[in-house]
């Protein structure tokens, strides 16, 4: 539907369920994709599956220097960087009263600070070419909160405020910055939940089912497209009606 031929996209967390689906759909729309993540094997498997126009770019997002170097590596590998998808994320859940500084800081560092660093790293090229798409994968819990996820919810809400601020700054240069906020999506992260937890969650979802990674990827492809050039600073909620905001 949307044509991304000739565009180069970097996707973090491409070894995960949602990141992998995003990379596949961007690739299917014609983009060259840079697959980033900490685990090399699944990235290489995905690159092999995609064939041409796929590059493996391993990066540990808790390593500030590696994060700063990633956009340069992506540009070297692909020749340009037009689309950045900050999808990588971790959870370290704990009750707020028991949450350690380390549990707080590591989630903020990986989810929020690395997103900031990558945005900074890609802006120069996007501003020069007067075209760019930054898509940050937030979460429904960034808007609604979730018990046990004070750190994760803060990082995901932080992404939204950061994206809006950046969107203001660079809109006149043809660069859009948006968020996609998934609800409960079938991935390794939600597989950790037991059946009782899943049932309780599904009671809150009007659609009555969990979402598929492909349904998040479709939202990303739209925001990456030329057609979405007038959409910036927004959060696209993809959550089966769980939170109508």
């Amino acid at each position, binding site marked *: 539907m949307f044509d991304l031929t000739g565009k180069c996209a970097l996707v973090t967390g491409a070894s995960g369920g949602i990141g992998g689906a995003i990379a596949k759909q961007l690739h299917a729309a014609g983009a060259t994709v840079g697959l980033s993540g900490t685990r090399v094997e699944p990235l290489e498997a995905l690159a092999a599956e995609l064939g041409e126009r796929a590059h493996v770019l391993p990066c540990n997002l808790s390593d500030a220097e590696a994060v700063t170097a990633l956009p340069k590596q992506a540009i070297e590998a692909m020749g340009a960087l037009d689309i950045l998808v900050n999808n990588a994320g971790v959870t370290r859940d704990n009750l707020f009263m028991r949450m350690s500084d380390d549990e707080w800081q590591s989630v903020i560092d990986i989810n929020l600070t690395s997103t900031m660093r990558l945005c900074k790293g890609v802006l120069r090229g996007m*501003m020069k070419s007067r075209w760019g798409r930054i898509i940050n994968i937030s979460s429904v819990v960034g808007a609604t909160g979730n018990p046990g996820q004070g750190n994760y919810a803060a990082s995901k809400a932080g992404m939204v405020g950061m994206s809006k601020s950046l969107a203001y*700054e660079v809109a006149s*240069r043809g660069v859009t910055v948006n968020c996609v906020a998934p609800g409960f999506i079938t991935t390794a992260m939600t597989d950790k939940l037991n059946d009782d937890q899943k049932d309780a969650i599904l009671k809150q979802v009007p659609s009555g089912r969990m979402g598929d990674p492909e349904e998040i990827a479709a939202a990303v492809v739209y925001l990456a497209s030329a057609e979405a050039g007038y959409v910036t600073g927004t959060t696209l909620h993809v959550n089966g009606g769980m939170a109508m905001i």
Partner: protein
Amino acid sequence: MSDIADRVKKIVVEHLGVEESKVVDAASFIDDLGADSLDTVELVMAFEEEFGIEIPDDAAETIQTFQDATKFITEATES
């Protein structure tokens, strides 16, 4: 006028879309040439590329006028 000043002037004229005659030594990018804060960041980026130098953020903040830019770049390219 020096070669550096010519090249800087060309970048300023192209980027800000101003008349060449307006780009005098004392001309402030923001107050006289209509740049916004993002324009000044882009000008610094363009200077870095044109002259193959790196302009640190704290130095970039001191570059307010055309003369500031030519002076900084002259010194940076000499060293």
